[in-house]
């Protein structure tokens, strides 16, 4: 009798066990399960790229990475974080290559020996956005700094990234240039999030915010925010590719990083960058700059 009970016990459990077993076996056979894949040409095919949320949100990598992977056999894993975090990941040797837009921090990064071979890739511009009502009256201001001054005087709501990203660093630099510390003021709020999320907050709260032109163009349709100030040399948004110093860690894929950096400044890649967004927005999201001098940009 006891035996019969035990056999019966299986009746409710077996379908569940079977389902889980099925999941488990399919899990084990899935190809991207482990990072190493034997079929690609390079001995170490995986390249970790730390880049910015603005690059990911623009969709540029969705166009460029398949071309690179097809051509070289490398597989790029793009990790989208703020430029600040990207540089720290590079400093720790956790990633192989960086595509970032925080020039002052990048120069310090190279000087400290964390990275090598910093190359200019492209630029676009930052734009100062605000609600159509323009409560601080900044439209027509001659420079971003002047607009910032009016915002501070009016005590109009300003939404900052506050996440240490390239955009955030530039914004803080503009306040410093003005000799003003906005942090702690009731009209100055930090989201601590990426560009897209910050645009959502600024739009909802009718605040001013600084955004890169690419993300703004991509997001323009759903926003009421308008461009208040642009075409100021202080608002240039410059992207560089930096290889992490291979001496940092034996686990750095130095060959893969070099291949990616070379790819980003190659003429046909630069052409792809120059065309990106034209179909959708009528203008390119990024201006390709490989080989130019950084000081000559925006002149």
């Amino acid at each position: 009798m006891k035996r019969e009970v035990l056999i019966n016990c299986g009746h409710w459990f077996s379908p569940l066990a079977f389902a889980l077993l099925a999941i488990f076996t399919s899990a084990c056979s899935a190809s991207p399960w482990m990072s190493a894949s034997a079929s690609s040409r390079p001995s170490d095919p995986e390249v970790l790229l730390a880049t910015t949320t603005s690059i990911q949100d623009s969709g540029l990598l969705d166009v460029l990475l398949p071309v690179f992977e097809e051509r070289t056999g490398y597989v790029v894993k793009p990790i989208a974080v703020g430029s600040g975090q990207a540089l720290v990941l590079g400093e720790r040797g956790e990633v192989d290559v960086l595509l970032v837009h925080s020039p002052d921090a990048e120069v310090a990064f190279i000087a400290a020996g964390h990275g090598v071979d910093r190359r200019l890739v492209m630029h676009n511009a930052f734009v100062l956005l605000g609600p159509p009502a323009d409560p601080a009256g900044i439209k027509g201001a001659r420079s971003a700094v002047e607009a910032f001054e009016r915002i501070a005087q009016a005590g109009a709501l300003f939404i900052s990234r506050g996440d240490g990203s390239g955009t955030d660093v530039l914004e803080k630099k503009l306040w410093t240039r003005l000799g003003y510390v906005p942090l702690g003021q009731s009209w100055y709020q930090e989201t601590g999030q990426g560009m897209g999320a910050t645009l959502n907050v600024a739009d909802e709260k009718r605040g001013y915010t600084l955004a890169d032109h690419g993300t703004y163009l991509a997001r323009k349709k759903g926003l009421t925010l308008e461009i208040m100030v642009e075409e100021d040399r202080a608002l240039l948004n410059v992207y560089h590719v930096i290889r992490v110093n291979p001496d940092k860690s034996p686990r750095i894929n130095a060959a893969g990083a070099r291949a990616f950096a070379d790819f980003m400044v190659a003429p046909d890649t630069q052409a792809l960058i120059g065309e990106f967004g034209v179909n959708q927005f009528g203008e390119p999201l990024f201006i390709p700059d490989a080989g130019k001098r950084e000081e000559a940009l925006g002149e």
Partner: protein
Amino acid sequence: MDLIVEGISRALVLLFTGDAELWRVIGLSLLVSGTATLLSLLVGIPTGTFLALTDFPGRRIVVSLVNTGMGLPPIVVGLFVTILLWRSGPLGGLRLLYTPAAMVIAQCVIATPIVTGLTLAAMQALNPKLRLQILALGATRLQMLWLLMREARLPLLAAVMAGFGGAVSEVGASIMVGGNIPGQTRVLTTATVMETSRGNFAMAIALSLVLLWLMLCVNAFLTVIQQRRRPL
């Protein structure tokens, strides 16, 4: 409001036109969270049962830890798993960061205390005299455990559902250890975060609805098993 309508219609279109990218994301969500749940069951059910049926010094402390773990913040789990799996971390040589395996580890850490805690509660809710009766009828220890689990199958399946729900719905840990890489570690929750950030709200809503639909399917399947009458 129009966004929600657009989201619903987009979700239906994506599901029924067999959008390859979406199905890959759904498949990976199921695979990662299913595996994490399975592993959490393998650890959680024996641990919960053990804690329910035995007494040892410090048992209450362990039970409190398990109960606290049921509310473990995913972002905390994500942060610690990331640091462990970093190239410079103790497990860096395994090269698991930004792979589905890393997501399984993180989700398993989140789901295991949930399964353990609910198993513990389920087993403790059984009448203590049942154990004596089963043993008196001459059952071995394993037979007794099996019969007790069978007796507690309703709350145990609830534990499975809660564990899976905790795993498949969390986003903080998955985005940190997985990196939301298209075709490799992009699951429904991380894709939703990205589409929201890109301002594609209709797409984000569509993905959320697909996630809810997926959870409904899995839970309906488990509920059918749970609510089946015993053929006695």
